[in-house]
């Protein structure tokens, strides 16, 4: 019932919470053709953790960018403590105590934490008394339950600590309304927990915290209230105590969702009669001379029909291993074999010929040909086999393949000749998945290397990608999954290798998956820490 009441409140466009700290009303923002925000209204109370939940592209970040002065709304009003305010630039927002920690940190890596923290607030001064600032911060940090080594260079700090530096930076500027954009994306479960406990201590100090996220579990764990956004609208606000995962998914996806939930009913079976080793890596070491190795003595194995995950905090060597397998990076030592064909130190084309294929990490920059047709993007990679013995392209065939991909994968595009850059992120990923299947249809796909295959996708597209990966797995190829999303790795993989500082520190079978055990391994702790 209470949910219905809050819906009525919004449909009237009037918010009647008592003493709203921030009130955003009927905010509209359009980017070219796209209505990013459509009459979005939001009210924030003092001392609450308010989660903004929604799919990618629902308008969460845009709404908050308007509050923090990065964008100016086309129409709509913002009031703080009941008084209408004009926020035209980040400085206006800062003057009202609004600060935002972005998904990608804005820190100078060869400055110390202290220098980074005071840069924004004191950067305009000629002389800064570092010692007194140091003392000031040492007093400020415990009040919020935070501690970082102020004299450490930022580049030496872990991602979790860097994030705390960003938060202290905001607090030091006197922020009382703190916006965190997808704060747990890069964190281990332990680091995320520590962040959540810091957040709850903020609310005790009277701060308002806005958490932008698409992870429902987190929201239920840490927030007081939740506003769900969909297609640029704030659809509904609910109290966390009255919310459930099911309810939130329903609001996120709309009434008629065919969403099946987060669990996959059927795990891929490795019921092949003959067990084959699709990938064998032995004693792999990668590094530049006179520098610590990026990868040291890594050995791993992928059987046919198996999905194997490489997990670790970004920059601990798992990516370099995959690059070496695909032939992008030259190893210093060790052996790599795909389907018992050794390809150590070979080029990309040799890996392709051995049956390895890649779903690249950065779809836009590594995956597509923006100004060529989507059909031509589709055949990039498979072209090595499609036109092996011919001099000229067969455009009839290419467009036929493009048409088929559009149909089979429900890619939203005007036609198969449309420029690839016209596609949205989700459709680009579908195209790249289609490419992997095209590859497997014209030559043997023995090993699929998938980097963050669902990064930035909405729940439905992500599920589509998961299903396809499982399909590739069950078709007999091996899949190597390198995902920053630990939940995704645990969901899809049969086995997981955990990386820390370029070494494999743990190998876990599906039955032993535990986010906290893996989180501890990823940060160099003992599994039973």
């Amino acid at each position, binding site marked *: 019932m209470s949910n219905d009441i809050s819906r009525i409140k919004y449909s009237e466009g009037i918010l009647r919470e008592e003493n709203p700290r921030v009130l955003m009303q009927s905010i509209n923002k359009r980017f070219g053709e796209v209505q990013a925000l459509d009459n979005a209204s939001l009210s924030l109370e003092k001392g609450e953790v308010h989660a903004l939940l929604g799919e990618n592209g629902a308008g969460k970040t845009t709404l908050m960018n308007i509050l923090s002065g990065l964008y100016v709304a086309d129409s709509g009003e913002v009031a703080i403590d009941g008084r209408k305010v004009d926020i035209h630039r980040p400085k206006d927002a800062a003057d009202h105590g609004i600060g935002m920690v972005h998904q990608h940190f804005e820190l100078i890596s060869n400055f110390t934490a202290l220098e980074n923290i005071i840069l924004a607030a004191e950067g305009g001064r000629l002389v800064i008394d570092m010692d007194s600032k140091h003392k000031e911060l040492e007093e400020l940090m415990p009040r919020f339950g935070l501690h970082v080594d102020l004299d450490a260079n930022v580049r030496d700090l872990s991602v979790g600590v860097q994030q705390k530096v960003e938060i202290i930076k905001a607090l030091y500027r006197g922020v009382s309304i703190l916006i965190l954009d997808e704060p747990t994306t890069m964190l281990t479960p332990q680091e995320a927990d520590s962040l959540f406990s810091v957040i709850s201590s903020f609310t005790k100090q009277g701060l308002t915290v806005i958490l932008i996220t698409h992870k429902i579990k987190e929201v239920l764990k840490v927030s007081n209230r939740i506003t769900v956004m969909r297609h640029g609208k704030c659809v509904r606000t609910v109290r966390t105590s009255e919310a459930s995962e099911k309810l939130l998914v329903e609001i996120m996806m709309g009434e008629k969702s065919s969403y099946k939930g987060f669990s996959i009913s059927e795990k891929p079976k490795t019921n092949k009669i003959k067990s084959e080793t699709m990938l064998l890596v032995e004693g792999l070491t990668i590094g530049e001379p006179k520098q610590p190795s990026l990868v040291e003595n890594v050995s791993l194995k992928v059987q046919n029909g198996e999905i194997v995950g490489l997990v670790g905090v970004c920059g601990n060597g798992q990516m370099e291993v995959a690059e070496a397998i695909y032939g992008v990076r030259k190893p210093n030592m060790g052996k790599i074999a795909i389907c018992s064909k050794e390809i150590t130190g070979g080029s990309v084309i040799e890996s392709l010929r051995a049956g390895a294929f890649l779903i690249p990490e950065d779809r836009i*920059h590594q995956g597509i040909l923006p100004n060529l047709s989507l059909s031509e993007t589709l055949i990039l*990679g498979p072209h090595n086999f499609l036109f092996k013995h011919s001099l000229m392209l067969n455009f009839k065939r290419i467009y036929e393949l493009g048409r088929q991909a559009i149909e089979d994968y429900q890619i939203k595009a005007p036609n198969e000749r449309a420029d690839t850059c016209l596609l949205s992120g989700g459709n680009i990923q579908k195209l790249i998945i289609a490419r992997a299947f095209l590859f497997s249809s014209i030559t043997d796909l023995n090993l699929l290397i998938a980097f963050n295959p669902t990064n930035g996708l909405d729940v439905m597209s992500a599920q589509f990608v998961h299903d396809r990966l499982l399909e590739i797995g069950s078709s007999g190829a091996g899949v190597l999954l390198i995902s920053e999303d630990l939940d995704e790795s645990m969901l899809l993989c049969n086995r997981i290798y955990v990386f820390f500082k370029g070494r494999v520190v743990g190998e876990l079978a599906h039955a032993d998956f535990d986010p906290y055990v893996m989180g501890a391994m990823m940060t160099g702790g003992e599994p039973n820490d």
Partner: protein
Amino acid sequence: MISINKIKLSIKNWINTKFLQKNRLISGLNGFGIYLAAVIVALIINSSFIAWAGGNIISSYETMIQVSLGSAAGLGQTLNKCTPLLLAGIAVAVGNRGRVSNIGSDGQIYMGAIFATGTGLLLVPLNMPIYVLSPLVLLASIIGGAFWCGIPGVLKARFGTSELFTTIMLLFMANFITDYFASGPWRAPEVPDSISRPIATSGFLPKFFGGAHVGIIIAIVVAIAIYFLIEKSVLGYKIRTMGDNPDAAKLAGINIPLYQFGLLALSGAIAGLAGGIEIAGLDHRLMTGLSPSYGLMAVLVASLGKNKPIGVIISAFLFAILMVGSDSLQRSINLPSSAVMVFQAVVYLSILLARTIREQ
């Protein structure tokens, strides 16, 4: 390249804020209309130059058309001008499609001319027939150009050196080498300037129409061949892939350094052929100042033709008309030669601006 894109973008933004939002008239013009408007604007601006030089505006434009297109001799001259512009334009365009910028194609034109002249002089005693010697002369120029642009190719492929610097540096070197041969070993004794002896007459290209040599036919054949190479062949697909997204190309197994080298050598070969045709078809002697910066014009020709061979054919022809026509203003109304350059620049800028507006 990045800075050019930035400039383009800022022009776009400027136009957008200044005109497009306020003035529906300009945004309403599309396709052909906008180019027509650009040409009219250019004509109006250029009229002021003619008036300033004391000429009659209407009759000056008449003279331009008359000189460049109005007679067989005029058309022949225009076609001869068009030949090096077209070949150098194709050379630059083919590189641009694969994201290598051969902006020093003048260097390869000179090197092609040196190789062509050398071959033409060396083989004088053999008394070869025309159908043997003139192809040999052109082949030598292709080798010369490929060699000269192959050096930046190796440097780029091996060390990642920017071809923007190396092709320009090698242009200066080619100028000096030309000077050395024209005023040194190959110098014609009867003339005071640094001009070489003429090559064997059987190395000359035959003429076919109003003084036009067959170079233009060769150039068009090359342009069409490049069209099929780039747009239709598997090799061209790899080149376009590399041009559109080198990172994606690399992950698809394309050997980027090898293709960069090959593409620069191909670009140089085409530019070298332009130099060879200048020697075999027109000048018959090596001299400094052989190319009035065809290589630089080629950058404009290629960009106006959108790096597409068919577009480059059209833009090279338009440039040739403009060059021959505006040169005639030097004689008819004593327009200073530097003003002729400005005259041409105005036309180029207005068309470029029109295209920028159109692509909004």
